[in-house]
């Protein structure tokens, strides 16, 4: 790769109690591209994603060793401000979890916790991010309605707008379309294609066709190990490892 990677993972190990969920992962995540982590259920995809914003630590018994460098700085280094790390990344989870407040307050939540108080600034942020997430036209008349009244697809776009509002550099998506109907999924995918011009995007998916549609770069995990990673074209058309070939061909799942 010509440009320096945005995220570099070095010898990353994650254990939950006695279970070793990730085993010595070393990989680079390229900047301003869509990287997709594929692999069967339980292979550690989500765990890997959750190390990037240190959300892995919210599971009480997780122990992490190795390094994750974002722009060259180890986010697991002692003394690192976790909230500052997380502010640099937006997260979309499998199911959308809007916060228990209005649509407006959901998007304004991030800026507010980081100290933005000015009403006009907040209003501008909310409109801008809702537009970016393709939701503005649908909610502009009911910004103060509860977010929980939106459809699931709209909620997921709201969560995207909420994440974008803290001005991250990286967007993490943990199977972000798995709870959505096909049209909403398509909508989200289109937005990702737009967003990759400005953001580094890392997605976890178990849907191979989605990976083919979106990925510029692919990481294939199997039972906690990184089997292969590289540009999407290489992985899908000419994988080096037999296991990758089997997985892509549907022989293992």
């Amino acid at each position: 790769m010509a440009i320096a990677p945005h995220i570099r993972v070095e010898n990353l190990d994650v254990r939950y109690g006695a279970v070793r969920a990730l085993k010595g992962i070393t990989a680079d995540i390229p900047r301003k591209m869509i990287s997709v982590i594929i692999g069967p259920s339980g292979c550690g995809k989500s765990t890997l994603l959750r190390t990037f914003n240190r959300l892995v630590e919210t599971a009480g018994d997780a122990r992490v060793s190795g390094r994750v460098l974002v722009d060259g700085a180890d986010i697991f280094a002692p003394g690192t401000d976790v909230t500052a790390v997380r502010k640099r990344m937006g997260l979309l989870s499998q199911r959308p979890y809007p916060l228990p407040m209005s649509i407006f307050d959901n998007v304004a939540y991030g800026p507010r916790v980081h100290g933005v108080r000015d009403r006009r600034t907040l209003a501008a942020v909310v409109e801008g991010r809702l537009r970016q997430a393709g939701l503005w036209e649908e909610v502009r008349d009911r910004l103060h309605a509860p977010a929980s009244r939106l459809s699931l697809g709209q909620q997921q776009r709201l969560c995207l707008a909420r994440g974008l509002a803290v001005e991250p550099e990286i967007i993490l998506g943990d199977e972000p379309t798995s709870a959505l109907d096909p049209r909403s999924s398509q909508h989200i995918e289109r937005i990702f294609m737009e967003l990759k011009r400005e953001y580094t995007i890392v997605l976890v998916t178990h849907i191979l066709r989605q990976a083919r549609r979106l990925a510029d770069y692919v990481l294939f995990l199997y039972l906690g190990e990184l089997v292969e990673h590289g540009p999407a074209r290489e992985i899908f058309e000419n994988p080096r490892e037999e296991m990758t070939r089997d997985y892509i061909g549907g022989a293992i799942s």
Partner: protein
Amino acid sequence: MDRRRAEERLMVALMIGSAVVMLGTLCWILAVVLVKGLPAMRLSMLIRTPSGGFYLGREGGILNAIVGSLLVAGGATALAALVAVPVVVYINLYARPGSWIAVWTRFSFDVLWGVPSIVYGAFGFALMLRLGVRASLLGGILTVACLVLPIMCRAMDEVIRLVPGELADAAAALGATRLQTALGVVARQAMPGLVTAVLIAFGRGIGDAASVLFTAGFSDAVPTSLFRPAATLPLAIFFQLGTPFPEVQERAYASALILTAVILAVSAAARALAGRSARHIVR
């Protein structure tokens, strides 16, 4: 086939029967209190303190006990909430899941929850003797706070545990601190349940006689200071029922009616307040 249908019917009948017993008990209690209490109900009951000979059937009211009970139970509930909220937030959002402090704190709620209120009364009384404090509003508030604290903690713990972890993760992923997540997101999601927890505690506190018997004492005057004894409704009911005079015993039912009405009014007010936040809850 027939046997399975009969089984189904029998069980449904039992369930409906149980529901009727439950509801019937409530209606019965309310009916008794209303039928026996209404005839003795006078405006003077609400707005006057007992004058000489009130317990012999003469003039007066139980304003002293109404105010005393509201102060004791209100103060105790507020004090208990000041302790319960940090405890519950700590064991749910700060302590590692399964850590010894969370496990043992929960165990202590369960034990304390089962301790009879007279034991709290005796404990409070012993403590006050040692500190040289006499029966007073303050003593009552502190003792009742001890009584309702485990009830409140347990009820709050249950509702906070129901909040999905992903919701807290979502706030954390935006860079919120744990405190911001706890107070701004998790507590908001759990708000109706938290209000219920406070109400359960208040109801238990205002209705308890044994814990205030020695600690708050009793007085015919409305308490004017934390260090004066304070009358409470359960004790007022107890003293009135204990007299040999039928007209005073009737007033005991009128007092019970007032106690019930106070609890209903406080519940309704608190629910109305909480209802405003409930519309944003994520289901």
